[in-house]
């Protein structure tokens, strides 16, 4: 189970970081979401992974740590609010500017080089 959780966190974070580094707002927003999922899972697992244990004292022989679960809950709520804000802001960016580029405008594209006509001796 530990290996699977670690792989999932790693995959989520890696894809999140990759998408954030893109230059369009939509991948950036998706990347932030994936990153926050990875972070939430990581935070959840910081209280050690266990099966069949409840975070309430007295209901079972041993209990799991309740604090990371409380932290994750807070982080999820805050993450949702922030994601909603970024979505609205990127829509605004899309409307205000020419495209959904994060810098508001397309980077300068050099025009296609003119085709040189072959100079032949004929």
């Amino acid at each position, binding site marked *: 189970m530990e290996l699977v959780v670690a792989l999932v966190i790693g995959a989520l974070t890696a894809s999140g970081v990759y998408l954030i580094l893109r230059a369009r707002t939509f991948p950036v927003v998706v990347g*932030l979401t994936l990153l926050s999922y990875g972070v939430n899972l*990581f935070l959840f697992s910081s209280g050690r992974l266990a099966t069949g244990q409840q975070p309430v004292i007295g209901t079972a022989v041993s209990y799991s740590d309740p604090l990371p679960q409380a*932290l994750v809950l807070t982080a999820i709520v*805050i993450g949702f609010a922030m994601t909603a*804000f*970024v979505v609205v*802001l990127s829509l605004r960016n899309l409307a205000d500017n020419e495209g959904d580029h*994060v*810098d508001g405008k397309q980077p300068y594209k050099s025009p296609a080089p003119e085709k040189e006509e072959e100079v032949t001796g004929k």
Partner: protein
Amino acid sequence: MNHWLTAPILIPLLGGILQVFMGYAPISLRRTLALATTVLILVSAIVLLALADDGSYRIYAFGNWQPPFGIVLVLDRLAALMLIVTAVLALFCHIYSIGGADEGNRQFHALFLFQLMGLNIAFLTGDLFNLFVAFEVLLIASYGLLMHGGGTVRTVPGLHYVVLNLVGSAVFLISVGMIYSVTGTLNMADLAVKIPQVSGEGLSIVKAGGMMLLVVFGLKAAILPLCFWLPRAYSKATAPVAALFAVMTKVGIYAILRVYLLIFGDDAGELANLGMDWLFPIALVTLAMGIIGALGSGSLKTLVAWQVIISVGTLLAPIALGSEAGLSAALFYLLSTTWTVGGLFLVSELVSNQRGSAKDRIVTAPKMQNRTFLSVLFLVGAVAAAGLPPLSGFFGKVLILKSVEPGTEMAWLWSVLLIGSFLTVIAYSRAGSIVFWRTVDGHLEKPDPLNGRVSVAAGALTALAVVMVVLAGPITRYTDATAAQLHNNDAYIEILQTPMIREDS
């Protein structure tokens, strides 16, 4: 348990909620109530300063849980000082904003008050996770404030600011998780007890967590590799918002002070002074970078925004060296620079309003109407910011220079700070002479007249540089005591033993 500690959080919370529901009330009523809230925050900050001045720690435990199990607010001299800095700055920004900058957005005052609430929670909390929550509260309010006034120019810097801070929050959560997984606690006092006992495998995890925290706080404080978002975002924001943001970088510095003096301080065993030997060179490079930016800036607001980065570098250098005198000097400079930079942001907007299409760009333009008043304000602000005598910036810099022990560090700090101050003077005199002296003939057709509120707010905030010189004695005594208190971690740890109120009593 002292219930006064909740006042700087509850007052803006209630005032902000009131503003949210008053969106369609007459604007004069909203302004009066909002301003009254800010005045009340200042009053509560003064009360807390008086409480903290006896040097003891006061805690407020939510739900009467014995720390480290519950969430606590902790008041000490440093927290009280930061509350006062914020409240004074916020009052003048707020007075300025009711001169017309708050129009066009019904929720400006609500956002402004929520921003203050976030700042106050950050200064009072004694818990790492609560610090994260406070950061998020102040950030989401700051996103709204940054966009205030609209305009396409604000969308792109705003988007960069928001995305960067969200990534910062993710890193903050990861580092909090790493530290929690080893120590099993997030209460700062408890961490100060647990961190020295960490050994073996846990050591490297906590070390990585601590260094990542430094990255997050560095992003908030805008130290070098993480500072490029700041000049564009701050120079595009409305003046009172930009002036209020002058304290936002100081939240990062406050967090560095708190975490790296208490948790990773001298007593932290193998993790003592984590990251501090990195911080000193980075601070000097940040300072140099800020000066290069200031010299190259094309408008007054960008110049002031780079001044924010200069002051961050100047503040972090003595903090990284870790001496008590350096810490005290840094706190004095923090007070001075926050207010001065705030005042300069307000003044540059006033200048911008009087120059028509030239705005605040450093180019020749027709004469301004209130040239004398504005140029005197700019002169006072620039002298205080550059650190020329006789204003408060000079005292701060002298104290910082005096606090370094002779050696390599002294050579570096003295040369960078002194050459840097000289170049800052050049940057300000270049800007001032072009904007105020090199004018073309004639006046603008319809200049915006100065109104009483904006000129009083900008003038008073700038004049604080003079007031600080008059009160330099008491302020230095207070910052000295604060530095001594920050270096005595045992007293902070004792809050873990504070007896809680029993239910039957």
